């Protein structure tokens, strides 16, 4: 097992390097530069030149890339041009909000999509199957900013049920322990804050989940249909087992591997794909930080966040591999 993890981690090194090279090239190829974007409107050309020199942007590109790689090796992404703070510190402050949002979105998506996928598989060709397909297509094709604004207008504006944006209520006395509002509030016994935190996260998480529901439902449906055609299921039915028992004891346990895979991979997609939703809901996470970094040509912050996303994605892949081994005895036997 350890050897397997070590292999995956080592395999990730070239991926990170490639991503680093790609993002370094992309941010430098983008038109516009940080100094002209961030300097005051009245700033003089001398001010701009001073800013470029301060950030090392007046150095040859190869020199800049050398410094970039050596800093990356030390996991030092430098200091943000815009926020005037170390990039790692900024990422550390914002990551919990994004993870919290992604996890809640995934829970919502899984809670709706897995039962929907199983139900549509068991009633293949029925009206329910048609409805499931419709939901899947809608979820995948509707842009998240549109869904988000509709939810705000209806749930927040018309029904006045939930706050329209933000993460926590104004100035709640919540001491930061883990950075996760829902966890911190529970650890500190502040049920009211927990409830308010939940209210704030529901709309953005539902928006984010919307796109995932279709994908997870379709994968779940396919997995259940595939397993249903296996001989051991046919045998179980032939032996006269009740339908519920066949589903619970034979179909579902064997369909979990692809479902877990897609859920694991989708968590990575949710974390890295929450940019639009975070901007729409003024959610103070990594996505809105990346948006701000890109629009202001903040090179250290942009590269830092993209590389962090890469680390997260790779880590989740490794985690999914480990979960396979835990849930599928055949894989354990195979390794032995």
């Amino acid at each position, binding site marked *: 097992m350890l050897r397997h993890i070590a292999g995956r981690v080592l395999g990730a090194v070239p991926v990170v390097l490639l991503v680093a090279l790609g993002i370094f090239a992309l941010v430098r190829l983008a*038109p516009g530069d940080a100094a002209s974007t961030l300097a005051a409107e009245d700033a003089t050309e001398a001010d701009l030149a001073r800013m470029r020199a301060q950030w090392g942007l007046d150095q040859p590109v190869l020199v800049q890339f050398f410094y970039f790689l050596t800093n990356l090796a030390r996991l030092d992404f430098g200091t943000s041009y815009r926020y005037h703070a170390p990039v790692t510190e900024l990422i550390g402050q914002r990551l919990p909000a994004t993870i919290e949002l992604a996890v809640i979105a995934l829970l919502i998506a899984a809670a709706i999509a897995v039962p929907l996928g199983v139900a549509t598989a068991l009633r293949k060709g029925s009206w329910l199957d048609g409805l499931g397909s419709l939901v899947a297509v809608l979820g995948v094709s509707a842009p998240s900013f549109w869904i988000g604004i509709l939810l705000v207008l209806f749930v927040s504006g018309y029904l006045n049920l939930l706050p329209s944006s933000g993460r926590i209520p104004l100035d709640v006395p919540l001491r930061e322990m883990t950075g996760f509002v829902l966890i911190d509030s529970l650890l500190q016994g502040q049920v009211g804050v927990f409830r308010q935190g939940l209210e704030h996260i529901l709309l953005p998480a539902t928006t984010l989940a919307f796109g995932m529901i279709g994908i997870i439902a379709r994968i779940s449906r396919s997995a259940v249909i595939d397993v249903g055609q296996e001989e051991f299921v046919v045998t179980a039915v032939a032996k006269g087992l009740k339908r519920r028992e066949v589903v619970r004891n034979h179909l579902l346990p064997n369909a979990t591997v692809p479902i877990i895979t897609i859920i694991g991979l989708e968590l990575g997609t949710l974390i890295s794909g929450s940019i639009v939703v975070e901007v729409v809901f003024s959610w103070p996470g990594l996505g809105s930080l990346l948006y701000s970094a890109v629009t202001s040509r903040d090179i250290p912050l942009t590269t830092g966040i993209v590389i962090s996303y890469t680390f997260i994605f790779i880590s989740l892949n490794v985690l999914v591999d480990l979960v396979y081994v835990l849930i599928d005895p055949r894989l354990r036997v195979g390794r032995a």
Partner: protein
Amino acid sequence: MIDCRKPSLRMAVIAAALASAFSASAQTDNDTLVVTTTDTLVTRHPYAESSAQMYSVWCQVYGCLGRYNYAARKFEGLLAERWEQLDDLTWRFHLRRDLVRHDGGPGPTTADVLHSYNQVMTDPQSQGRFYLSSVKEIRRVDDHTFDIITKEPTSSLLGQLFDKFTITSEEIFRREGGVASYNTAPIGWGPYKLRNFAISERITLDRNEAYPGKVESSPRTVVFRRIQEPDQRVTALLNGEVHIARLIPPQLVGRLDNVPSVEVRRSPSNEPMFIGFNAKIKPWDDPRVRRAAAMAINKDIIIQRILFGMANRLDGPVGTEQVCYTTPIANRTPYDVQGARKLLAEAGYANGGPAVDFYTAAGRYISDRQVGEAITQMLNQAGFKVTLHTPEFASLWANVRAGKAPMYYMGRGLALEPSEWLSQYFETGVTPRISYSNPQLDALFDKDRKTFAFEERCKIIREISQLIDTEAPAIFLWNHQYVSGVRKGVRFVPDASGELWLPDVGL
């Protein structure tokens, strides 16, 4: 008794329970004023961000020398009690002696002003050097008096310094570990104290109860809450999550009509919107072509149809809210498509053309893309062959700054002092944004800087405005209106700065 076994009733009961459980949290308490902001709120460092929002906040927390009062149309002292001009290069300022620092420490002194000047000019993170660029040195006279010596006569010095030049405590800076003190001890002399600064989320201020002349009706606590999306700002206002929703775009004002608990309040801004031509790039080196473009654009129809009437037409570069505005200039460029065609023919384009590239950002200014499309159509009707480009703002702005954009639609924020920003664009060699050069105009700018009598100076600015309108190195279109949705019962009169002077606001 309600029979909850019926599905419809059960749903209704659940919905009512949810509504009562959740909606209470959207409300705010009575002493707290919540105001939206679209500013990024990036840093607690008072000199490291140049934005109207942050200048205003730091001026009200730390304190600044003075501010421009739009209602009274004059500069007022805040930390400075009074000032006078000793000669063309020397301004003497006297600091107030009745102020107490938020922590009970002494009021502002000359040492604090010198320290702040030093910070703006030497701190690597400082974004404020531009507003002190005409200052040669600040000289101590005594603990509460200092002289500002300018490099050359600068009649607009107050407009450059006031509202922006934040004064911070030298003692706190030294005691609390330098720049770190901005995080750990944001203590000043202003009418409000900083309670909390959550980067990219909100700023919370508490009223300074020890501030002389404190207004009892001003809010005890003020929260600037960042909401970027306009739809959400409106929703948050209607929900009762915020009291003042700023920067409501014209197309969303309708959502606030006929809502009894909300009022729409407008103010002209001092951000002139204009089309700039780079005179180094053909055909914009020809004043007849520039003037033809100016005559081809029907500003009124764009204001009515695209901006829903929520902009004030500009005739010349100086708007109603800027220093020295009195009346429109005498000889305004008329809207005259036939006249534009005639001018183009004179310039050698009788058979069509010239072909020009027109740049506007999409999403930076109100309805900017639609405005760009309308202007393109109008210019094409006059005979131009316009290709419209809508790059991302950062890319467009870098090109404008470098003098590479031939024709662009742009706004100029914080344009209180017209001579400052007009010099930046139209005086020879100051910036390459327009690349226009006119010795007559340069002489007027020079004369303006050396003229300290207000009325006399305003006459010169009128001459400058007239010359720019005639020569058309840029076409001045309109000032957008700042539209705010305000909950009933909130005393707030918006002004052209777009910001709030909190002692003037009441709950």
